[in-house]
């Protein structure tokens, strides 16, 4: 297997894009990545998306995107793993290049969530969970995360306010990212007064609904000596439903995929400079930190309280806003995380730049933890 490099990145700002279709979002991000890489033709396209069949009444995105990107004829397919679609598509793109089957691969994540009303969109997002045994009980996706958060607070003795640093950090960093959906920092007081959506989760513990697209262009590292390297790439799965997990407070698929990625990279968690984790909900950030070996069990929240996660902390997370501040266009999110990690390593992160990023980790979670993709990127 040959080493893979990321030669180009493209991102569309996460917004309520009433003037842009799903097709336009995907094509604009793809063109931006091609232009960034200075590549005209690719050998394959992997598109990631979760909800287009239901919310946009359009499937078959591989061919659609290839067609409108001026890449007719190339192999193109869509991958879906709920909110973990983009990380999973990245993994397939990497395998295609690493195997030697393809030389230039475009991975594009796109999601259009705001053409439909709130109820329809949230119902589509809820299909990430078990339809017959979770969703039929009237639980929402926020509700599932609330069940985990309350149990976490009960077992480890935390209050809702203890989770505030995750939201404050994400919004502070999002304010420095022009592609972020939210550009204003929030205060502890704003967090404390947040409306409860599904207790104990408040508005500020949950990521917003938005439209977006992000894309990466992958090539063999041998062809791009100055491009950011992919040194770890793994996807793991767990039970679809939370209630079937051996331990509902442990992201087994995060542990497994992180372990594989660390082994591939020949490093441990202490070598990671920044971590773009999947903070769709504050509780997920805490669980991700624990399951990947950055904190002991039940101590993930303490990393927030100690300031470890801040831009100047021991392990900066959500450095360009995370899912909370940048936004969470589900099937595109994992590629935003990867694009941001590339910018941080290149030194192109603008106001959000963290000094001296050599190794960055990203983690994209599908559903409540059933699919988890972990990637480690390195300066060449």
């Amino acid at each position: 297997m040959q080493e893979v490099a990321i030669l180009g990145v493209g991102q569309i700002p996460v917004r309520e894009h009433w003037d842009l279709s799903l097709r336009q979002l995907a094509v604009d991000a793809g063109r931006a990545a091609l232009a960034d890489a200075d590549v005209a033709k690719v050998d394959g396209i992997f598109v990631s998306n979760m909800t287009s069949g239901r919310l946009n009444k359009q499937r078959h995105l591989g061919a659609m995107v290839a067609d409108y990107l001026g890449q007719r004829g190339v192999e193109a397919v869509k991958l879906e793993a709920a909110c973990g679609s983009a990380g999973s598509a990245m993994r397939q793109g990497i395998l295609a290049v690493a195997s030697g089957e393809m030389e230039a691969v475009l991975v594009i994540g796109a999601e259009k969530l705001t053409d439909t009303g709130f109820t329809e969109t949230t119902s589509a997002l809820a299909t990430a969970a078990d339809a017959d045994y979770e969703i039929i009980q009237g639980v929402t996706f926020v509700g599932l995360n609330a069940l985990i958060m309350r149990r976490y607070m009960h077992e480890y003795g935390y209050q809702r306010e203890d989770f505030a640093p995750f939201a404050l950090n994400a919004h502070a960093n999002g304010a420095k990212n022009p592609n972020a959906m939210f550009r204003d920092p929030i205060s502890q007081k704003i967090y404390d007064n947040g409306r409860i959506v599904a207790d104990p989760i408040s508005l500020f513990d949950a990521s917003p609904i938005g439209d977006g697209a992000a894309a990466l262009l992958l090539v063999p590292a041998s062809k791009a000596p100055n491009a950011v390297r992919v040194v770890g790439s793994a996807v793991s799965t767990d039970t679809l439903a939370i209630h079937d997990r051996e331990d509902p407070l442990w992201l087994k698929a995060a542990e497994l995929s992180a372990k594989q990625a660390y082994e591939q990279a020949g490093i441990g968690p202490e070598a990671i400079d920044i971590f773009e984790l999947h903070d769709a909900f504050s509780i997920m950030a805490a669980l991700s930190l624990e399951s990947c070996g950055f904190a002991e069990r039940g101590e993930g929240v303490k990393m927030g309280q100690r300031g470890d996660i801040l831009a100047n902390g021991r392990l900066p997370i959500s450095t360009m806003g995370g899912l909370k501040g940048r936004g969470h266009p589900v099937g595109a999110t994992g590629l935003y995380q990867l694009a941001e990690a590339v910018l941080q390593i290149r030194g192109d992160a603008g106001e959000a730049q963290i000094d001296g990023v050599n190794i960055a980790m990203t983690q994209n979670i599908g559903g409540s933890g059933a699919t988890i993709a972990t990637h480690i990127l390195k300066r060449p």
Partner: protein
Amino acid sequence: MEVSRHWRLQKQRYELVGETCDSCGVKLFPPRDVCLECEAPAQELYTFTGLGEVFSYTTIYDAPAGFEHNAPYQVALIKLEEGPIVTAQLTDMALDEAYIGMPVEMVTRKLRTDGEEGMIVYGYKFRPICFEPVVN
């Protein structure tokens, strides 16, 4: 309409019928034919007692389509006495009554409706255990 889809699950929805693992004896709900613990075949049916306790809970204010009639309502993870955890609504109690560890029992209630003339889906919910069971 998804009549056959819900009809297929009546044993689970109305009676909590799961399975027992042939090899390690673990009880499974929902049934999955392959043991979660040891991955051996698990196809012997087992009817759960319906007794358990609240493992976690939350209150849903923004109800999904089909559940609006009931909002706000509480959803919980229930740890059944045989071991498995199920996701289910709490019922027959006030919103401020639930606590982690609360003993509960399964009952059959209306889960969702599809408008005025559509199908009504019934299934399990859990309520506080009101009386101590009689011990012989």
